[in-house]
């Protein structure tokens, strides 16, 4: 019974969040474009699916994954407290946190619905050249690196903007060398990563760390993790494209060489 009530409340809350978008879209469709929507019935059924799906997803996360994820982030950040002492923080003592950040960053990104959507679209638009899994895995690797490095930053207490400046510089350099078609998609993937699954877990990790590491304040050091998760996927997606291009070129060159030697024979 409690489950049904929770489900109803979640569906209501999701509907309320989606309502402004739906109103804007249908408003413009009716009053500005003044055209019937093709396959209206199908689109509406699709909307209902999305609404139900998102509600189920959120409720399930709230019941299963988030309580455990939050608890873990908290427990892992307190575990090292007795060995670290109260005054001097040794960053290497927190190795389980970095490993947890790496693992949870990767797996949460794989489960992210918004990223699935963008990967499906990119695959369709590129005519299959950009693989759904290739994109998702490279974004997930980036997010994992970002969260892990962000956790290290909180432990070290270093100012965030130096990290951001270095990341920006790397992105600018990489943009120069990466294949031009991937650049817009790579920039997009940063913002796409941080959504329903990733944000709550990352925020819990950041706040847990900032509360438990001596000398850190949750209000100042607890923020900034999401910014890292946004930057690293940009680099890994461009790297993914660079690696595929390199392998493609090398294969083509090898083919050419073997063709030439076949000609001379």
């Amino acid at each position, binding site marked *: 019974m409690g489950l049904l009530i929770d489900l109803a409340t979640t569906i209501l809350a999701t509907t309320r969040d989606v309502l402004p978008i739906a109103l804007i879209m249908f408003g413009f469709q009716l009053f500005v474009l003044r055209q019937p929507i093709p396959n209206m019935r199908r689109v509406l059924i699709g909307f209902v699916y999305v609404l139900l799906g998102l509600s189920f997803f959120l409720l399930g996360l*709230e019941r299963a994954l988030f309580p455990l994820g939050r608890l873990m982030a908290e427990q892992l950040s307190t575990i090292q407290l007795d060995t670290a002492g109260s005054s001097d923080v040794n960053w290497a003592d927190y190795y389980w946190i970095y490993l*947890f950040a790496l693992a949870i960053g990767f797996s949460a990104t794989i*489960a992210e619905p918004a990223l699935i959507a963008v990967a499906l679209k990119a695959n369709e*638009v590129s005519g299959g050249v950009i693989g759904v899994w290739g994109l998702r895995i490279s974004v997930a690797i980036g997010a994992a690196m970002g969260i892990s490095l962000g956790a290290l930053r909180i432990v070290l207490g270093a100012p*965030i903007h130096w990290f951001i400046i270095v990341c920006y510089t790397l992105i600018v350099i990489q943009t120069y060398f990466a294949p031009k078609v991937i650049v817009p998609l790579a920039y997009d993937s940063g913002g796409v*990563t941080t959504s*329903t699954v990733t*944000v709550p877990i990352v925020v819990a990790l950041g706040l847990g760390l900032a509360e438990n590491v001596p000398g850190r304040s949750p209000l100042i050091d607890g923020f900034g993790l999401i910014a890292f998760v946004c930057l690293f996927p940009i680099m890994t997606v461009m790297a993914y494209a660079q690696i595929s291009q390199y392998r493609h070129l090398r294969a083509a060159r090898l083919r050419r060489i073997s063709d030439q030697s076949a000609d001379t024979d």
Partner: protein
Amino acid sequence: MFGLFQALLGSVRDLLPIMLVIVFFQFFVLQQPLPNLPDLLVGTVLVILGLTFFVFGLEMGLFPIGESMAYAFARKGSLVWLLLFAFALGFGTTVAEPALIAVADEAAKVAAQGGVIAMDTASQEGYAWGLRLTVALSVGCAIVLGVFRILKGWPIHWMIMVGYVGVLIMTMFAPEEIISIAYDSGGVTTSTITVPLVTALGVGLASAIRGRNPLIDGFGLIAFASLLPMIFVMAYGMAF
């Protein structure tokens, strides 16, 4: 029916990694039993079903409507209405975003502790509301800018680099407490419903306009939506 079953299998595969990570850390690192097992099982089933329905509805509803509206706007040929729609979509989806509400409330606490605003609830609520409006305004402007770029076919990397320089310049002048919050606000704005809609809008526009490549010109709207909030929020922090 078979399609739904396949989608279900896909969702299990998508969610398997995160479950394995949690089970591994719970049993082997923290060495504790799983608490509240029935809740955990129900929750897992709900997550799998939810993801399946979402992906199913995505292809049926969100993608087609985003693209058909993009085509309709391109046919109509009215720049003003298109940009107005872009702004409304960005502003409307962001102002009610739950993740943003949470971050804005936290930010108000930081500001109160830092002595920027008074400690009472009224001024904290006012600050949080102002921050939400600022972010929503910035996302609205970002989608407008992004749509304009698609129409003009401008290369994205120059615009993003100008944005990066803007972020760095603002960082030098913004009060220290707001910097991390500003950086984070870029990421929390793009929700699970906004992303597919905005992506479909961009790709649809780029396919409808002659001379535009959907891959090169169609993507990039979300990149603006994660960049502009940083600049706007730091400006908001400086204004106080």
